[in-house]
C-alpha cells in the first residue's frame, strides 16, 4: 500500500514537471512524438496558470473548508500521502508548490489510442530536479523489488539512444533532458522514441484533423484537448446515442441538432482558459452547423443580425436561458422530426385546439411568435398572508417575442383564461379548490393573475404545495410573459421595460445561452435541503448522515460558484459551445 502510494505521488509529480534548462530548447513540441493514431489528446501548454489557481490560498482555503475534504484528511491514507510529500520536500529541498512547478511547468501532454495505449509527456522546468526525483524513486523501487525477492522487476534497456526504464509490470518510461515520457506499455514508449528519431515521420502534429482542430481554437489556451471522433463513433453505446432518432419533441427542440452535428463530425476540439477566478471551456466540432433542410435549421438565425437575446435579469434569479428557435418552422417539420404520435403530443394538440378555438397551430399560433425565446427561473417570495409550502418550487417563466403583439396578445389572453377555466373545472370535479382570476397593475402595465384563495386556519409554515403557484400572463411591449408566479411576472415586466429602453442586441454566433446563478441556486437548494436529503436516502439507500454529507457537499461546493454560463452556437459554420465558470472563492 505504502509503496504504491509513494510511486503514485512520484509519478504524479513527474507528470506535472518542466524546463528552464537549456536542453529544453532543443526538444521539439511533444505532439511531434505522438502517434497520429491517438484518438484522445490533452495538452496543458500553460501549467502555470492552472497551478496558480490550484495553489491560490483562496482555493486552498475553499477546498480545505469542504466537509468532505476534512473527512478525507482524517483517513490514514491521506496522512501517508502528506508524509510522502514532506519526504520529497526534504529530499528535493524545495517546498511542494515550487517543486511541482519546476517539475511540470514546461507542459504536460497525455495521449491515448484506440487500442488502450497511453502516453504521458511531461516537460520539467528543472531537468536536474527531474533527474533527482527519478533517482530517488529508482532507489526506492529497487529496494522494494529486492525486499520482495523480485530484483529483476526494475530494469532498463537502451533504445535508439535513450534509456528505457520500467519499475515493474507494463509500465515504461524514459527521461530525455528535461522531458519525461511515461507509457503504459513499452511499445508505446518505443513508438514515441521512433518518432523522435525520425523528425519528418507521420506524427499527430502532422495530421490534418489535428491541425484543423488546433486552428479552430482561438490562439493562446492554457490547455486543450483533441478527440478523434471517427473511431469513437463506431463504439456501440456512442453509436446508439447518436443514431437514435429522438422521439421527444422537447428534447429535439432544446438540442437543436447538436447530436446531428456530432454525427457529422470527425473531430472535437476543446480549449481551456483561466483568467482570475474564471475558467472558460470552449468546444468546436467540424460538422456542419445544420443546412437548410436539417432539423437544426429552426435554430439557425435566418437573418444576419439575429440570434439569441441576452438573458433577462431579475432579483433572486436562479437560472436563465435564452434560445433562438423558430417554433413555426420547427412545428411545421414535426412529421419529419418525430414521426411518432405520443399521447402527450396529442393531448397538447387537443388542448391547444380548445384554447385557440381551432386555429391552425402551426400557422396561426406558432406563426405569430418570433424565434427569440427566454426562460427565467427565480426564487420566490411567499406572501406571509398565504404561507410557505413545505416543498418550495422556484418561480419560472417563459418570455415570447410576438410578430404582431397588438393583434395576438388578446388571442393569447383568451386562450390563457380558457386554460384556467379548464383547470378549475377539472379541479372542481376532483373536489379541489380552483383559481380566481384578477387583473392587477404593475409599473403601469395591466396583467392577469390567477390565484388560490388563502387557506383558513392553516399552519402558515407548511401550506399546500399549490401555493407555489400564482400563474400570471402579461404583455410588455412586443413580449409575452407566461409566469408561474405573480412576483416573477412583475419582475419581468420591469426587466423588459429596462431592456426596451435601449435596443437589445442579439448575441453573436449563439442560438442558446444558459446561465446559472450560484447564489440563487444555492438558496433554493438550501431551502429544500430536508427534502433533498430524504430523496437521497430513498434513491441511494444512504443513512440520514450519509445523505446529509452528500447534500451538504453539493451546497458547500455551490457556495464557490458565482456563475456558470453555457452558450451554444456556430462560428464560421462550425457548431461550437462555450462554458464559463466564474468562481467565488472566499
Amino acid at each position, binding site marked *: 500500500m505504502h509503496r504504491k502510494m509513494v510511486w503514485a505521488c512520484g509519478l504524479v509529480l513527474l507528470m506535472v514537471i518542466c524546463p528552464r534548462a537549456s536542453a529544453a530548447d532543443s526538444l521539439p513540441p511533444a505532439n511531434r512524438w505522438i502517434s497520429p493514431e491517438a484518438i484522445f489528446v490533452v495538452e496543458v501548454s500553460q501549467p502555470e496558470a492552472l497551478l496558480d489557481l490550484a495553489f491560490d490560498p483562496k482555493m486552498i482555503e475553499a477546498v480545505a473548508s469542504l466537509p468532505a475534504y476534512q473527512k478525507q484528511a482524517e483517513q490514514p491514507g491521506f496522512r501517508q500521502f502528506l508524509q510522502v510529500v514532506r519526504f520529497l520536500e526534504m529530499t528535493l529541498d524545495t517546498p511542494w508548490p515550487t517543486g511541482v512547478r519546476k517539475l511540470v511547468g514546461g507542459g504536460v501532454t497525455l495521449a491515448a489510442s484506440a487500442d488502450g495505449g497511453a502516453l504521458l509527456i511531461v516537460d520539467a522546468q528543472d531537468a536536474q530536479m527531474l533527474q533527482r526525483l527519478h533517482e530517488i524513486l529508482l532507489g526506492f523501487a529497487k529496494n522494494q523489488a529486492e525486499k520482495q525477492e523480485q530484483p529483476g522487476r526494475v530494469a532498463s534497456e537502451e533504445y535508439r539512444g535513450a534509456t528505457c526504464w520500467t519499475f515493474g509490470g507494463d509500465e515504461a518510461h524514459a527521461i530525455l533532458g528535461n522531458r519525461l515520457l511515461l507509457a503504459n506499455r513499452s511499445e508505446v514508449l518505443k513508438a514515441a522514441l521512433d518518432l523522435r528519431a525520425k523528425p519528418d515521420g507521420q506524427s499527430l502534429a502532422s495530421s490534418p484533423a489535428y491541425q484543423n482542430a488546433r486552428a479552430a481554437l482561438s490562439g493562446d489556451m492554457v490547455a486543450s484537448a483533441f478527440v478523434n471522433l471517427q473511431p469513437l463513433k463506431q463504439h456501440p453505446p456512442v453509436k446508439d446515442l447518436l443514431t437514435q432518432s429522438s422521439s421527444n419533441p422537447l428534447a429535439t427542440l432544446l438540442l437543436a441538432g447538436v447530436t446531428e452535428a456530432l454525427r457529422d463530425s470527425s473531430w472535437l476540439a476543446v480549449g481551456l482558459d483561466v483568467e482570475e477566478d474564471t475558467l472558460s471551456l470552449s468546444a468546436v466540432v467540424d460538422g456542419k452547423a445544420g443546412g437548410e433542410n436539417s432539423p437544426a435549421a429552426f435554430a439557425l438565425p435566418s437573418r444576419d443580425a439575429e440570434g439569441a437575446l441576452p438573458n433577462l435579469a431579475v432579483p433572486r434569479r436562479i437560472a436563465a436561458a435564452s434560445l433562438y428557435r423558430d417554433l413555426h418552422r420547427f412545428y411545421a417539420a414535426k412529421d419529419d422530426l418525430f*414521426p411518432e404520435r405520443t*399521447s402527450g403530443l*396529442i393531448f397538447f*394538440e387537443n388542448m391547444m*385546439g380548445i384554447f385557440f378555438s381551432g386555429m391552425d*397551430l402551426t400557422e396561426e399560433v406558432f406563426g405569430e411568435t418570433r424565434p427569440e425565446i427566454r426562460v427565467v427561473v427565480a426564487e420566490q417570495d411567499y406572501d406571509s398572508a398565504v404561507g410557505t409550502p413545505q416543498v418550495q418550487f422556484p418561480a419560472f417563466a417563459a418570455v415570447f417575442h410576438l410578430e404582431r403583439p397588438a393583434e395576438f396578445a388578446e388571442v393569447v389572453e383568451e386562450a390563457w383564461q380558457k386554460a384556467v377555466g379548464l383547470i378549475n373545472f377539472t379541479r372542481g370535479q376532483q373536489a379541489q379548490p380552483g383559481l380566481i382570476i384578477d387583473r392587477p397593475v404593475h409599473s403601469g402595465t395591466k396583467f392577469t393573475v390567477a390565484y388560490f384563495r388563502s387557506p383558513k386556519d392553516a399552519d402558515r409554515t407548511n401550506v399546500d404545495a399549490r401555493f407555489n403557484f400564482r400563474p400570471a400572463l402579461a404583455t410588455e411591449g412586443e413580449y409575452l410573459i407566461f409566469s408561474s408566479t405573480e412576483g416573477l411576472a412583475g419582475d419581468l415586466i420591469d426587466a423588459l421595460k429596462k431592456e426596451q429602453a435601449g435596443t437589445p442586441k442579439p448575441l453573436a454566433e449563439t442560438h442558446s445561452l444558459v446561465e446559472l446563478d450560484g447564489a440563487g441556486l444555492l438558496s433554493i437548494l438550501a431551502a429544500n435541503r430536508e427534502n433533498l436529503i430524504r430523496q437521497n436516502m430513498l434513491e441511494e439507500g444512504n443513512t440520514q448522515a450519509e445523505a446529509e454529507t452528500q447534500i451538504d457537499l453539493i451546497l458547500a461546493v455551490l457556495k464557490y460558484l458565482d456563475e456558470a454560463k453555457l452558450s451554444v452556437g456556430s462560428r464560421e459554420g462550425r457548431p461550437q459551445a462555450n462554458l464559463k465558470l466564474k468562481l467565488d472563492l472566499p
Partner: protein
Amino acid sequence: MFTTRRDFLKTSLGTSALCSLGPAVPAFLSRSALAAAPRQDDGHTILVVVQMAGGNDGLNTVVPYEDDEYARRRPTLRWAAKEVHKIDSLLGFHPRMQAFMRLYQEGHLSIVQGVGYPNPNGDHAAAMRDWQTARPHQPDCQTGWLGRAIDHACHPGEANTPGVFVGQIAQPFGLNTEKAVVPSIKNLEQCMLTPEFDSAGPAQRTRTGDDNPLLDFLRLSARTAHADSRRIEAAANAPTAEYPPLPLAQSLKTVAQLIRAELGIRIFHTELGGNGPGGFDNHANQRGNHGALLSQLSESVAAFVDDLKRDKLLDRVLLITFSEFGRTVAENGRHGTGHGSAAPVFLAGGRLKGRLIGAHPALTELENGGQKFHTDFRRVYATVLDRWLGMDSSAILGEKFDTLDVLEA
C-alpha cells in the same frame, strides 16, 4: 392435453411415490420434464391483443368513401374515393394503411364492423375499463378479461406463464389477475438470466423427490426457468424479418421472438397510443396525427404477419385490436372529432375466414354522436376464447355470448 400434463407433474411432485423410489428416478423424471416442456406446448394457439388508447376514429380507418352523409359530416377530414385503398365499391382503408390493404388481399386480415356495447361510456378511463374488464358499467370489477383467462390457464405447480405484456407503458388493466403474476416485458434482456449470477447450474444438479413438495416445485421451476432463458437467448440471436423503427413494431418483434422461443405463452398484450387519454384521442388536427398512428399500426402488424409467415408460425397466431370507442361522425370545428361509440375491430392471422364481417353501421342513426354498434365486443372476446384459445368463455366473461364465425376450424 393440460389435464394429462398436470397429472404428470403432480406425479413428479408427489412426495411419497418418488421418495420411495430413490434418487435415480427423479433425475430421469426431471430430465424428461425439461425435455418435454417445449413439445407439450408445441402447436398451441396464441393470441396477441393490441390496445389502441384514445378512441380510434373507425370512420376514417375503414372509410365509406361513397357515402354522402360521410362527405357532409366530415368537411375537412374526409377521404376521397381516389385517396383510399378500396376494399369494395363502398369501403376503403385510410390512405396510409396500404399494408393493411395487402394483408386483407392476402386473407390475413379481417374487419369486424360496428363493434361496441350497450349504453357506451363516453369517458376514456371508464370506457377503456369496460373493454378491459369486459364487465361494462361495473367500476369495481377487480380483474381484466385477459387476466381472468390467464388465471384460468395458470396452474400452480407448473410455474407456467400463460400471458405477458410487451410494451413500455404500465401494464394495462386488461391483464389484471387475481392470482397469477403477469410479467411486463420491455426488452428481451430482462427475460434472460444474468450470466454471472445464474444459479441454475447448481440448481440443475439438485435432486427432486424431496419430501417437501414446495422445494421440489421450486427445483423444477428453476430448471424450466433456466431452459426458458436459454431459449430466449437463442431466439434473440436468431435472425428476424425487418421491422420498421416504430414502437409497436418493436413490441411485435419481441412478441415474435418470444413465440419462437416456445415458452408456452398463449396471450400477448401490447399497445399503441400510450397511457391515457391516448394518442388516438384526436380532438384537434386529426388528419396528420391519425394517419401517423394508422400507418404505424398497419406497417407494424404487416411486418409481424410477414415474419411469422416466413417461419410457418402464422397459423398459430391470431392478433386482435381494440380501442375504447369510435368517434363522432361529425367533425368539430378544430379539425378533430369527439368521443363516439362503435368502431371496427381488426383480426390478423393465418386462419381467418371471411374478410369483412358485419355491415358498416349507418351514419344516420347515431348513439353519442357516433355509429351504433351491432356486434357486442364480448362476442369477439368469446370467439377468441372459445374458438381460438379453447378456453371456456362463459367462465371468463361471466355470461354466454354468441361467437362469430370468423375462424377456420
